[in-house]
C-alpha cells in the first residue's frame, strides 16, 4: 500500500508567477527510501514541507496511510522530520530533546525514559543524553535529530538535506550510517537532496524534480541508464552526459562510454575523432575534455572519462568511439527521450 501519496499537488507562492511545485503525482511505498532530487529552486523542499504540513498546497491532495491529510496539522499526521540544521532545542539536554515529542503528544510519563533510551541506543548516543546540543559535533547532532524523530515511531520520515551541513569527510560516513539506520528501522523515508551521488547511493527510487515539475521517477538504474529527458540525463552523472545537437535531435553519450576506439569491445560502435584540450587527473580516473573532429559532429565539445590517461597529450587528436547501444536520443524541441535512430557518422 502506498504510505504517502500526492495527487496533482501544486504550490504557487505568488499569484501569476511560476509555481514552486506543479501538478506532482507520486507514491511512496511501504519501507521505501524515496529521494527527491533536484537543484535549488526545483521545489523539492517545498514538496517535502507540504507533505509535513508546514506549507499549505495551492491545489491537489496529500495522502498519508490512505487518508487525505490536507487539513491536518503537522502533529496530526504522524510524521517525523529532520531539518537541514537539525533544529535541536538548544536550551534542552539531549534527553529532553528526544523526550519532547513524547511530552507534546501526551504519551504517559512513565514510558518516557524507556522510549528515549531505546531511541538513543538505536543511534548509539546513550552517553550523550545529558549534554546540550551546543556541546555536540555535527555528526552527533544528526544522530540526536534522528533519535528525536524515531522516538515516536512515525509512519513516515522526512529528511531535508541532513548531510549538507557536514563537511565532506564526515558526509560519507554519515551517509552510510543513515543507510544502515534505514535498513534497521524500515520506516518509509523521504529524503531531499541536491547531491546526485547521495541520491544514487541511498535511494530505492529517485524523483527527479526541476522547476517544480517531476521529470522522472525511477530506480537509480532507470534514471541513470534510461533518462527521460536531457535534464535528468545531465543532472545525474558527473561529469554530465555529453549532449550534441544534430538537426531535430540531441544525441547523448556518457563520458565513461566515450573511450579510445580500440579499447571498446562492443561490435557496433560509432567512431569519433577527439582532440584533447584539457587533461585532469583525479587519482582514480582521468577526465579528458576537448573537441570532436570531422564527421557530423565536427567542432562540438565532448568529455571523456577513463581509468588510464597518462598517455594522452594536449593538442593531439585521437581515435575515440562510443558503443552504438549507449547512445541516447532526445527530441530537440521537447528535450524528451525519443527512439534511437540510425545516423550516418561520416
Amino acid at each position: 500500500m502506498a504510505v504517502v501519496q500526492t495527487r496533482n499537488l501544486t504550490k504557487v507562492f505568488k499569484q501569476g508567477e511560476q509555481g514552486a511545485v506543479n501538478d506532482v503525482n507520486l507514491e511512496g511505498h511501504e519501507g521505501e527510501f524515496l529521494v527527491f532530487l533536484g537543484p535549488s529552486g526545483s521545489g523539492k523542499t517545498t514538496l517535502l514541507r507540504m507533505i509535513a504540513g508546514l506549507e499549505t498546497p495551492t491545489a491537489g491532495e496529500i495522502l498519508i496511510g490512505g487518508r487525505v491529510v490536507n487539513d491536518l496539522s503537522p502533529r496530526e499526521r504522524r510524521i517525523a522530520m529532520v531539518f537541514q540544521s537539525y533544529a535541536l532545542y538548544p536550551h534542552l539536554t539531549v534527553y529532553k530533546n528526544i523526550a519532547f515529542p513524547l511530552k507534546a503528544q501526551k504519551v504517559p510519563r512513565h514510558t518516557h525514559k524507556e522510549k528515549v533510551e531505546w531511541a538513543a541506543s538505536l543511534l548509539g548516543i546513550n552517553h550523550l543524553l545529558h549534554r546540550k546540543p551546543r556541546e555536540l559535533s555535527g555528526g552527533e547532532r544528526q544522530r540526536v535529530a534522528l533519535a528525536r524523530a524515531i522516538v515516536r515511531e512515525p509512519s513516515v520520515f522526512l529528511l531535508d538535506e541532513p548531510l549538507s551541513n557536514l563537511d565532506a569527510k564526515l558526509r560519507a560516513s554519515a551517509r552510510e550510517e543513515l543507510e544502515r539506520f534505514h535498513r534497521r528501522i524500515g520506516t518509509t523515508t523521504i529524503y531531499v537532496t541536491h547531491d546526485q551521488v547521495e541520491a544514487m547511493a541511498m535511494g530505492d527510487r529517485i524523483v527527479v524534480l526541476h522547476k517544480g515539475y517531476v521529470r522522472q521517477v525511477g530506480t537509480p538504474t532507470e534514471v541513470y541508464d534510461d533518462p527521460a529527458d536531457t535534464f535528468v540525463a545531465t543532472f545525474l552523472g558527473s561529469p554530465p552526459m555529453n549532449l550534441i545537437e544534430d538537426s531535430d535531435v540531441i544525441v547523448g553519450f556518457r563520458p565513461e562510454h566515450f573511450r579510445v576506439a580500440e579499447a571498446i569491445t562492443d561490435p557496433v560502435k560509432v567512431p569519433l575523432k577527439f582532440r584533447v584540450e584539457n587533461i585532469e587527473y583525479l587519482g582514480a580516473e582521468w577526465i579528458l575534455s576537448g573537441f570532436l573532429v570531422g564527421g557530423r559532429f565536427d567542432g562540438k565539445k565532448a568529455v571523456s572519462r577513463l581509468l588510464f590517461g597518462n598517455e594522452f597529450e594536449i593538442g593531439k587528436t585521437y581515435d575515440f568511439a562510443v558503443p552504438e547501444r549507449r547512445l541516447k536520443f532526445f527530441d530537440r524541441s521537447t528535450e524528451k527521450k525519443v527512439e534511437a535512430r540510425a545516423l550516418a557518422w561520416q
Partner: protein
Amino acid sequence: MAKLTPRIVAAKMLHWCILIVFTVLLAFPFYWMVITTFKQNSDLYDLNSNPFIFNAKPTLDHLKFLFGQTMYVRWLGNTALVGVIVVAITLLLSIPAAYALTRLTGRWGQRLGVLIFLTYLIPPTLLFIPLSRLVAILGLQDTIWSLVVVYPSFTVPFSIWLLMGFFKSIPRELEDAAMVDGLTRFGAFVRMVVPISISGILTVVIFTFTLVTQEFVYALTFISPEKNQMVGVGIPIFLIRGDVYYWGSLMAACLIASLPIAFLYNLFLDRFIAGFTVGAVKG
C-alpha cells in the same frame, strides 16, 4: 491547516484584540494631543461637553499663541542646534573608537568596549550635581554650550556600542584586500569601512539626535533663562505659568516636538535592531 476553523478564527480575533488594545493604550495620549490642540478653550474647559468630539469649531488659536507669543520656536532652534553639534562631536569621537575596539585591539579591546558600554549605565541623575558645579566653573552655566559639552557623555557610549555591532559584521577581507592594494590601515578605514557603514552611521545620527531631544535632567539643571532652554524643558517649565496651564498650546507644543522625530526613528529602527542583535547578544 487550510480551513478556517472556529479555533483559528478565535485566534485571529484575539490577535487583533491584543494589537488594538495595546496600540490604543500607547498611542492614545498623542491622539489626545491632536484633539486638544485644535479645540477652543470654551470647549476644552466645559465639563459637560463630550471631550471626544468637537463641540465648537476647531481653532488654530493655540498654535498661533504657541508660535507667536512664546519662545517655542526659539527652543526648537536651540534643540536643533545642540542636536546637530552633539551629533557631529559624537560621530567624531565614536566612529574611530568603535573601529579601533573592533579591529585593532583584540581581546582587551573587546573588554574596553564593554567597559565603555557600562558607563552608559551611570545615570545623569547621579552626575548632574557635580556636573552643575563643573559647568559653572567653566563659565558655561545657563548657555546651550553646557549641554554641548556634556551630552556626548551618554551619546558616545551608546554610539560606540552600536557601531561596534555594525563594524563586526563587515568582513575583514574587505580591509585586507584594500591593504593589499596599497592602502594603509587607516586609509582602509577611511576609504572602505566608513563608506560601507553609512547605514550604520545614519542610524547612529538619528538615535543620537533622539537622545539629545529627550534629555531632561541636564537641561533642567544647567540652564535657567527661558530663551536658552531646550524644548523638552522649556515646555513644562515655561508654558505652565504658575498654576495656569495653557493646555491647548501645551499639547500643540508636545505634539509638534514629538512627531517628526518619531517618523525618523521609525525609519531607522530596523537597522538599529540589526545592530542591536549583533552587538548586544555578542557582548
